[in-house]
């Protein structure tokens, strides 16, 4: 996919369609103010499609906390077998959070 110039059609407060331009001045020149090729998927959703950044924040934060707590717990345990057992649990959480590969 080659993006020549980014323009997004959005609705205004009166539900009227308007064009939002992500460049200033002339077209067909390198003057992007926002370029999706340099954003992450999250960045595209939040910065271009105005999705609320914290839409799934609650769930994710809770799970991240669980992940951090379990890590601290494993660190304190000295028995290797017990460590290995709990690390398997950490792997499941890590995968759920997308921190580890599926």
């Amino acid at each position, binding site marked *: 996919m080659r993006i020549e110039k980014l323009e997004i059609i959005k609705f205004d407060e009166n539900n009227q369609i308007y064009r939002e331009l992500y460049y200033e001045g002339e077209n067909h020149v390198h003057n992007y103010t926002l370029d999706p090729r340099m954003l*992450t998927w999250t960045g595209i959703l939040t910065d271009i499609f105005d999705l609320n950044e914290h839409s799934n924040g609650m769930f994710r934060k809770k799970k991240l906390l669980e992940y951090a707590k379990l890590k601290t717990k494993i660190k304190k345990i000295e028995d290797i077998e017990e*460590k290995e057992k709990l*690390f398997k649990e950490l792997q499941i959480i*890590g995968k759920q959070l997308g*921190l*580890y590969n599926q």
Partner: protein
Amino acid sequence: MRKIDKTVILSTNYKEGIKTLTKKKKSIKGDLEHFDESLKKTDAWLWENLFIVDTHTNCRVKGTKSILKPDSKEYNPFKYLELYLSDEEDNIYSFKANSNLSEEKQEDVEYMIDTLGLNCIEDERSRQLREWKDKYELGLQVEAYRYITAWEMTLKNLRETNAK
């Protein structure tokens, strides 16, 4: 070259000459290449001269610089490469040219990193590194079976940080 899965060619997997097995292939996709191309004419099947390259990587635009060729005598990834945190938000680590090299050499290395597609798999590689890093920091044994260079560099960084 694809490794043949012997269970696929069993006669029980065929009914009236049609393959009935829908087993997912686990084989890798790779191309057979020669270290020394000049031997192709006379000794094309010389075992020591063959190696497999990932098809995706091999199909990319081929570079002309011999730097970073694993079969080169001077090959040393630690001399040429450096692993750095390229995207803090997503915890992505990528390869870049070692900053100890001259600017000209760094450009050559960056070119080869792109040509060889060393950062094409940075998402998956970074997640794998994160899992092993966690494991290592929790006092467990890590047996790295892929991304060896990246893992060794991560380990070196971890040891240096811990020593401080």
